[in-house]
């Protein structure tokens, strides 16, 4: 007995956490400043495991921070700047109140500002770290660049965001790193592969903002402030990795081609506008011709077999082919299609693009150009049509990019009902339901060419074939099983007969030359190996294996069901159409 009584909440988790208000008081900052600081420094609230202990017995919901994080914040030089700013505002208010204009002038000249460079370096110690986190920055920059300059946020921020996004798009074009596009009802999703990192971003449609009221603009602006700084540094690094000039300059050749159109924009803005037209290539530091593609180095790693290597090589080749998807094609965008998105897409895959002069600056050729191969139109019909070009709807471009091949243009002609635009972000595992349109595209990728006529039916047939293939495989397995069972039965009978002491019926028959189908044999061998492996499994593993196989089978069954449903749906639609056609007649 003896010693001091232990007090509650003076050790353990209660001392590891600090409430938001206490943290704010510790840093001597107002709540908005504190919030801004936390966002900039990347310090987030934390939910303690034992709330009641941390909250000193109370169960009220509070925002907690880790005490160590707040202690870390104490060392931040920006905190001082925030305090300076507070004082600055106070002085300014006072000067205004006393109508001391000279003092106002002087104070404004010495307005305290802060830099975020050191925080970027601190939070992203290496360039790859920054690249991994660039998704958010891109989304935010693209979002803010579409805002109207109406005072929801600083006009300067909007301008900066616009500049950075244009730089980013130009980089993606120059490096040809775009991989996927998806037009959703929300906005357009892009995915690019930059230095081995998959980067996804969302671009809102233009002019689609109704400003929601339940969004805290101050928080968003703070995030944007941080992300613009990050994006700028990343852009710089990326441009230098491609030997491009930063800030981006137009190629001297193309620059002379683009005449100055005085009435389009102010002089200060016209250069950015020209850049954002995305029609011209960028100037390089070392002006060399495009480097020859390096042969893929082969370093056989021991863990890998040749198959995976080959697969990778194949993928690489496919990617190279995708990069040159639109090379040699000349596009013209009609005025009703989304210009920026399409120009970005076409230039990313090496195509040439132009538009009407009145739509945007930077058009390179006219509608009347005879060498145009594709004219992108999004209206039911066009008055004057040139015979030597395709008039297609914009979805063709997006679908081509996702399919990595040039799709047949017939489905996308003017006034034709478009095939569905499938999401490239869905990756089906084997056994999942795959929509027939995707199957068709996959067949095209494999190089199978459907006949030009009755495309739809062809598609269906293929789908059926696919289904049959799967079934066949299953059947094969079953058949083999049956054969084995039959053999075993025969053997059993023979043994029984032998055990009963009967002499076996021996017969000599003329031998037949067995036709050895090498492929078949190999397959059989493999199947046998698999069977044996299954037999050798432990009970536990076997159980697991059975479970997996059951799941797979169930998936296949469900997929088949969906496919059948789809077929029924299609048939119903077809019959409807026929009926309608008949009634019209």
């Amino acid at each position, binding site marked *: 007995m003896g010693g001091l009584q232990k007090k509650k909440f003076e050790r353990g988790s209660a001392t590891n956490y600090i409430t938001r208000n206490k943290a704010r008081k510790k840093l001597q900052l107002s709540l908005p400043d504190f919030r801004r600081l936390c966002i900039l420094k990347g310090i987030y609230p934390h939910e303690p495991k034992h709330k009641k202990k941390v909250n000193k017995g109370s169960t009220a919901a509070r925002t907690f921070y880790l005490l160590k994080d707040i202690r870390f914040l104490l060392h931040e030089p920006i905190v001082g700047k925030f305090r300076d700013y507070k004082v600055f505002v106070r002085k300014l208010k006072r000067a205004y109140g006393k109508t001391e204009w000279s003092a106002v002038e002087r104070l404004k000249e010495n307005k305290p500002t802060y830099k975020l460079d050191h925080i970027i370096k601190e*939070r992203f110690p290496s360039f790859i770290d920054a690249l991994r986190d660039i998704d958010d920055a891109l989304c935010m920059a693209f979002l803010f660049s579409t805002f109207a300059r109406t005072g929801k946020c600083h006009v300067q921020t909007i301008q900066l965001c616009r500049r950075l996004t244009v730089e980013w798009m130009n980089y993606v074009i120059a490096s040809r790193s775009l991989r996927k596009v998806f037009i959703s009802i929300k906005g357009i999703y892009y995915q690019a592969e930059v230095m081995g990192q998959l980067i996804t971003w969302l671009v809102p449609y233009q002019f689609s903002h109704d400003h929601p009221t339940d969004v805290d603009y101050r928080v968003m602006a703070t995030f944007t402030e941080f992300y613009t700084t990050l994006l700028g540094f990343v852009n710089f690094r990326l441009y230098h990795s491609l030997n491009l000039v930063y800030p981006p300059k137009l190629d001297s050749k193309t620059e002379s081609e683009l005449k100055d159109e005085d009435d389009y924009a102010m002089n200060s803005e016209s250069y950015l506008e020209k850049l954002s037209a995305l029609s011209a290539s960028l100037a390089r530091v070392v002006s060399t011709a495009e480097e020859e593609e390096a042969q893929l180095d082969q370093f056989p790693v021991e863990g890998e077999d040749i198959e995976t290597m080959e697969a990778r090589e194949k993928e690489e080749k496919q990617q190279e082919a995708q990069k040159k998807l639109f090379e040699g094609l000349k596009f013209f965008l009609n005025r009703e299609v989304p210009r920026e998105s399409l120009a970005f897409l076409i230039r990313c895959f090496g195509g040439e693009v132009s538009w009407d002069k009145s739509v945007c600056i930077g058009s390179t050729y006219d509608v009347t150009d005879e060498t145009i191969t594709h004219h992108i139109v999004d209206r039911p019909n066009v008055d004057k049509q040139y015979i030597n070009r395709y008039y297609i709807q914009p979805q063709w471009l997006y679908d081509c990019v996702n399919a990595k091949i040039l799709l047949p243009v017939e489905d996308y002609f003017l006034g034709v009902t478009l095939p569905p635009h499938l999401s490239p972000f869905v990756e089906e595992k084997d056994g999942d339901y795959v929509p027939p349109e995707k199957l068709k595209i996959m067949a095209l990728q494999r190089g199978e060419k459907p006949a030009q006529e009755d495309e739809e039916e062809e598609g269906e047939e293929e789908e059926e074939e696919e289904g049959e293939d799967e079934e066949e495989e299953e059947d094969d397995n079953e058949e083999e099983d049956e054969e084995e069972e039959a053999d075993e039965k025969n053997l059993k009978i023979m043994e029984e007969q032998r055990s009963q002491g009967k002499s076996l019926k021996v017969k000599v028959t003329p031998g037949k030359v067995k036709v050895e189908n090498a492929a078949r044999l190999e397959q059989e061998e493999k199947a046998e190996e698999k069977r044996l492996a299954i037999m050798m499994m432990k009970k536990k593993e076997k159980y697991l294996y059975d479970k997996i196989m059951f799941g797979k089978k169930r998936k296949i069954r469900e997929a088949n069901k969906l496919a059948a449903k789809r077929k029924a749906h299609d048939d119903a639609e077809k019959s409807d159409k026929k009926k309608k056609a008949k009634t019209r007649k």
Partner: protein
Amino acid sequence: MASARRLKRVAASQPGFINLKSASDSAGSASSRRKRVNKNKKKSWNKHSDINDIDDFLEDVRHQERTTGGLLSEKSDDSLFFLDIGQPKKAEQKEEEPVEGKKRKGKVSRPLRIDLILQHDSLVQPPKDVLAYQQPNAKKLRRIAQKAEQLAAKGVVPRRQKQLLNRRPVDRTVKKAVTEANNNPDREYYDIWGQESKNTADPWYLQQTGKKLVKRPEKLNEKPSVLPAVEVIAPGGSYNPDFFSHQALLQEAHDIEVKKQKEEDKIARQLAVNRADTATEETVFNEQVEGLVEEENEEEVALDEEEEDGAVGAIVLADKKTEKKRKREKAEKIKEQQRLADRRQTDQRQQLFQLRSIKASIKQQAQKTQAKQIKRKAKQEAQKAQPRRLGKLKFQPQDMEVQLSDELAGSLRRLKPEGSVLKDRFKSLQKRNLIEPRERAKFKRRLKLKYVEKRAFREIT
């Protein structure tokens, strides 16, 4: 007065002077007596000599100059008089009229009288400012300039200029860089990851002056959620979706709506008024009559209470234990303990033979704990993708963006965007635990509103 008159007389007697005021007050001024004063000093001379007549004269000269541009006496007759021959100007006026008539009929536009008054009407030229034409110290300056030219030709720089040249230029750009805001659209970027830290100063000094950056703890670089920054919408969210994926998305949205509806219904049900609780005529009557009508069973109740009181009062006292009894109890206790100890021992001995089953049970237990561990781990993993409770409010997921089958646009041109990307980003930040969910602060009125009828309104009513 008298002296003034005399002066005028003097001036008028001067040759060629024509007095404007032909006053004839020459008579009757001799009555004043002359005062004798010494004028031997300049001061007294100035004081007592009368110069009014000269002043008057000069004034008159100036007046003449102002009004006529010179002395009248020196002017020629032609400039002073003209020959009056009726009204010959009528013809001229008629000629002029049509020109003015074009501009304005009726009145001839004339400058306003007030402007005429304000006009400079003196005919005397304003005096010239001599200094405007004459440079002070011109000679000296000229000489200096000449000398400087000579020196410059020789190549000698004056001392002052040398000093100026030697002075360090004021770095204005540095200051500008300080005041540059973060959102300046023309801001410069550089290779932040390429350059090494250039701080070569004494680390102790840097640390003490607070210039050294504190190393960021590794733990802070962990993300608070495993969710990706950009969650791509389900395939049914395509602008031109595949039939089934669209149906799947609709189904999902439908399920969410149904759930919400159920909750709302539940609340409505709980809030509904219970029919049994409403007052009927009977209950109202009963309430009114309560206490007025005597009831028969009241007495019985009182009797019952009395009986109960009697029962509660009795406390049973236990008898004292005898020695014998105590001994017996003790022996029983010891015996019981012995029995239990024996039992335990035999059990332990028996366990030797139960080893297999014990092993099995231990194994079972271990398996159970392992399963639990796995389950807990999985739950923790799943928790990482969940939004945490970070503040007063719970995270509310955004409404799903869905377009019904008839809202779907056939072509990109007619596409109507659904939802707001801004909100999507904001909710994503909340979902990833980067910021706590908050509500917009409500406006609180500090002072009470007071309604006053305006007088005009009050008069009507």
